[in-house]
């Protein structure tokens, strides 16, 4: 870690002129990047007539939480949040398990069919869910997953990105470790559970964060698989408003902010892990 810091420091002296300019630029970009969301949040506390009247003011003239009250009257947020959380947690646990197992196999065994399967998995990234909605729905229906939260969980748990991330990690683990464990008499399952899984904790954390993001923000599968409002998720609520013929902005703004809060909390808690995890090690070709 120390060498990297020195490294970056020296690199800076070579590549960029002055710390001041860089600092100013960094602040500027930070502001540009954060402004849209900040504006959205501020706007959500303005009454509707203020949203659509000039001149606009940065802060609400007439601060109100009416929009939020309305949103809570309109949607069963607690239930939606529970549903979304349930989907996210279950899907993430299964994804972690499946991806690490499959990634391990792809990295540490050499069979022709494994290579073939790897190519098959690659193909899955090519076909977006959205364009297979009709056939996918048929499958969900046939499996009896319709109108069940599992209908939005199971079709999403296999992810090429996850498998790939784990495979890349296991490739980097020396085979000697594996051989040594085999000589000690462990079977493959034991090696995986006791030796390999603990090693890839940080990769799993990265994948968990990815998975959280995907599932929390998913709306295609919930739209397909769920017909009962008691099973709806937060993104469906957002979609109900943003896909309306005449958009009710005051309600949409507050609902947007509400669906964003859990993501924000998770981000704040895991901020260090997210930002420090060397994502590139997983994605690097």
């Amino acid at each position, binding site marked *: 870690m120390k060498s990297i*810091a020195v490294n970056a420091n020296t690199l800076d002296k070579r590549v960029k002129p002055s710390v001041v300019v860089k600092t100013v630029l960094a602040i500027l970009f930070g502001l540009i990047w954060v402004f849209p969301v900040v504006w959205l949040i501020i706007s959500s506390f303005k009454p509707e007539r203020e949203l659509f009247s000039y001149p606009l003011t940065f802060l609400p003239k007439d601060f109100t939480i009416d929009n939020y009250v309305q949103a809570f009257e309109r949607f069963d947020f607690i239930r939606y949040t529970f549903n979304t959380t349930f989907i996210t947690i279950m899907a993430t646990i299964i994804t972690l398990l499946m991806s690490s197992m*499959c990634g391990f196999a792809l990295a540490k065994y050499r069979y022709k069919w494994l290579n073939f399967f790897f190519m098959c998995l690659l193909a899955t990234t090519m*076909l977006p869910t959205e364009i297979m909605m009709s056939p996918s729905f048929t499958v969900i229906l046939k499996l009896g997953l319709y109108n069940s939260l599992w209908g939005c969980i199971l079709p999403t748990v296999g992810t090429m990105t996850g498998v790939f991330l784990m495979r890349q990690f296991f490739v980097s683990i020396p085979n000697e470790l594996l051989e040594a464990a085999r000589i000690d008499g462990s079977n493959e399952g034991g090696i995986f559970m006791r030796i390999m899984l603990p090693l890839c904790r940080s990769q799993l954390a990265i994948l968990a964060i990815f998975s959280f993001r995907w599932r929390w923000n998913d709306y295609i599968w919930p739209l397909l698989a769920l017909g009962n409002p008691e099973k709806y998720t937060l993104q469906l609520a957002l979609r109900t408003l943003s896909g309306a013929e005449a958009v009710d902005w005051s309600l949409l703004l507050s609902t947007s902010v509400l669906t964003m809060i859990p993501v924000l909390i998770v981000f704040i808690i895991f901020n260090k892990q997210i930002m420090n995890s060397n994502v590139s090690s997983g*994605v690097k070709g």
Partner: protein
Amino acid sequence: MTKVRRNSLDKNQKWALLFCAPNILFFIVFFLGPAIIGIYYSFTNYNGLFRMDFIGLQNYKDLFHDNEFILVFLNTVKYVIVSVPIGYFAAILLALLLVDDNIKCNSLTRVLVYWPTLLSTIMVGITWKWIFGESFGVVNYLLGELNLTPVKWFSEATSAFWTTVVASTWAGCGVNMLIFIGGLKQIPVDLYEAARIDGANRVQSFLHITLPALKPVSFMVIMLSIINSFKVFAMVQTLTNGGPGTSTTYVIQYIYKTGFDKMKVGYASAASMIMFIILMVISFIQTRINARSEKEM
């Protein structure tokens, strides 16, 4: 000896199969199955309900003569060609700017740039629709205050196109930036030292050291960006709804519209298959080039 070895190999193969089993099952049920059904649909005039007659290649023939589909496809290609390089350079420049851990505000800025990547595509669409609102959006308001002409962000084809590019760059840049920061930190300092002694200026060392060192990472980023850009959907649907006219309608939205609003599931499936083949070709090229660059390393 050989026999024992063979035995353990077989055992390992069983384990390998076991490890992969959930994914294999998943692949068959949720990918292969729907894909085969989709291929079958593409040869029919299925309307999503009762009518389903086999019509052979008719859908594909029609697609190649469908001006709207061709237009939408070209829109998508244009979007990919423009948004991928912009996203790439934005990410690399931000990475160069923010790589230095010794500047205090860098870590905060990194967080701020990364944060939008956690938002859902619908949220991204909503956010920028709000910012770019033509009559009451904050951007046009500020332009007005500066006595500049407000921009018709959504009702004029070119600017609507750019709003989709801006929104996707904003939302996607953070991940790539982190990847590049990771890559930058792995470049040995000696290289820069040596270049400096040789009298190279900053641009030269960027071009001859930084960029080549980032090549494998860049490659990955660009390929993923291309595929993701082809697949853009919910964000643009929320932001411009494909308008004005069809100028920001990209392939996936076209497929969605054709399949569900117009209830031409068969036709939409055929369009999906064409899309699939195109993405397969791109990814094939990717893995080929990637394999070569791995060998070089």
